[in-house]
């Protein structure tokens, strides 16, 4: 038994830019290029990179939404594409994902209650105490219960993202993959969501894969940081090392740019 919960082993993913007459790809772009990454149970791993760096593709590989062209995604030491029956369902439940745009990640035609109910039903957790479970979920993510009766378009960005987090928690997962969960939100709402995520991690003993283009946010959320650039991991290490002593030129430029833009707020004492 491996001590790693999730692993990406030599994973490559290609996107076809154009399709040929007979369906064959004519020209491929490498979204992930031979990436190996191991995630330990209970850790907070941050992935930082610009758009096109492959960080979201990697997130979707871990969530089983994109099948790598080569390489393996392992859950508890076993290839997720070889899992069958209960083993597969355990993986499916254990790894959940929260997307960037909270509004497009909720079905616009369904009330919050029905969205959550379907998820509970699918994982066999809906019973007599279903309503109580819904109430608990709402409480856990800091929402009033009347939100259950609303449609996504009636919610603010922050509320919709809390609902998306509640949906992920509904199946009692081990790992949350957070793919830019606060990039579409105001900084003040971002702070609320980040604090919520921190407290949920403590309460439920979750493992986080936190993805963002903003290295300051990633640092705030993670013990360990992986820097991605053009489909490859260019640097990896404990958060404070990466920030204080970046080795790769790309990491240095990320930090330098941020410090330049936010010089004034960086200097304020607290």
């Amino acid at each position, binding site marked *: 038994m491996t001590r790693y919960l999730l692993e990406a082993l030599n994973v490559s993913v290609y996107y076809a830019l154009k399709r040929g007459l007979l369906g064959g790809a004519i020209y491929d772009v490498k979204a992930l290029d031979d990436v190996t990454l191991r995630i330990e149970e209970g850790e907070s791993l941050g992935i930082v990179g*610009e*758009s096109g760096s492959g960080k979201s593709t990697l997130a979707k590989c871990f969530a089983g939404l994109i099948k790598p062209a080569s390489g393996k995604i392992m859950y508890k030491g076993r290839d997720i594409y070889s899992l069958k029956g209960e083993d597969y369902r355990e993986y499916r439940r254990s790894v959940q994902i929260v997307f960037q745009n909270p509004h497009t990640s909720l079905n616009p035609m369904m009330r919050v209650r029905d969205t959550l109910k379907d998820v509970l039903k699918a994982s066999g957790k809906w019973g007599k105490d279903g309503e109580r479970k819904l109430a608990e979920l709402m409480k856990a993510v800091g929402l009033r219960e009347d939100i259950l009766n609303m449609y996504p378009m009636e919610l*603010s*960005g922050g509320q919709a993202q809390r609902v998306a987090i509640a949906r992920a928690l509904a199946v009692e997962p081990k790992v949350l993959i957070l793919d830019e969960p606060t990039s579409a939100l*105001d*900084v*003040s*709402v*971002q*702070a*609320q969501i*980040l*604090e919520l995520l921190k407290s949920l991690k403590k309460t439920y003993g979750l493992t986080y894969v936190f993805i963002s*283009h*903003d*290295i*300051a*946010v990633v*640092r*705030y959320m993670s013990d360990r940081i992986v820097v991605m650039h053009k489909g490859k991991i260019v640097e990896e290490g404990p958060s*404070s090392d990466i*920030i*204080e002593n970046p080795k790769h030129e790309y990491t240095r*430029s*990320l*930090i330098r*740019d*941020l*410090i*330049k*833009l*936010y*010089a*004034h*707020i*960086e*200097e*304020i004492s*607290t």
Partner: protein
Amino acid sequence: MKDPMLVVKNLKVSYKLKDRVVRAVRGVSFKLVEGQSLCIVGESGCGKSTLGYAISVSLPPNAVIEEGEILVNGVNILKTDPVTVRGKLVSLIPQDVGAALSPLNTIGEVFADVLGSIGGGRDSSLKVASDILKSLGFSDPQRILKSYPHELSGGMLQRVLIALAISLNPKVIIADEPTSMVDASLRREVVDLINTIRYNYSVTTIIITHDIAIAPSLCDITAVMYAGKIVEIGPSKSLIEKPLHPYTKMLSKSIPRIMKLVELKPIPGLPPDLGSPIKGCPFAPRCPDVVGDLCYNVEPEEYRAGGRSVYCHLYGGASHDTISA
């Protein structure tokens, strides 16, 4: 002292919805001189975008200007034909870069249309366009003019839109959340670009953003808006480094720092519903420093000191010297 280029006087804008009226901007006033730049900062729903749309005469049809005036170079743009204002006196850089240009036209055709509206011929328009693009750092403007929007990257499109915005030599440019949809790595480029047009074209700029921390690198002056009003306005640098209004203080505490690991302190609660009347200070229910009933009952007046204006009862009894200290 130069004459002000942009004057906004007691502006009130509301939206008529099916069953109620939402007062999005509830009395905003400020002045900017030529080349000055202002950041309007606040959470979504505070009225900052509405204010931006009002100044760029591009309010949605259900918005009503209830009171106030907006003067650009002495012209009241609310009483002028919008066609003579948009792009020529005031222009807007839209937030959604991807949706801003028709996918069926080349960049050159768009420029020819825009510049043609002031009577420029096609060739002279393209010449002007290529000069502007060059000044914004495109090494091969001819190629850009022949491209369709989908052939350009997000960063390039943003530059093209900024070029379009300044192409008719407006006096005022408004950018709606220019840095929020772009990666941190592109953000620096956008900031540099806006600063370039500010200095090279000495145009008055207004930046609308939710990110208070970016204000000092973009603007001379920062105004913090809450519930449709400015709660604090002053020079960006000092406003960030020494915020006076409790709301400004809390906003800057909700931004993660890079070099120091500082605990974030989110602002509890939600902004007030602008569809119902507001009594007293709108921030009072979320404010950690409430000064008794005064805050809930009396709307705070302006207190000035050191180039700063703040609307908060905390400073009601204080002399001007203590504020500026």
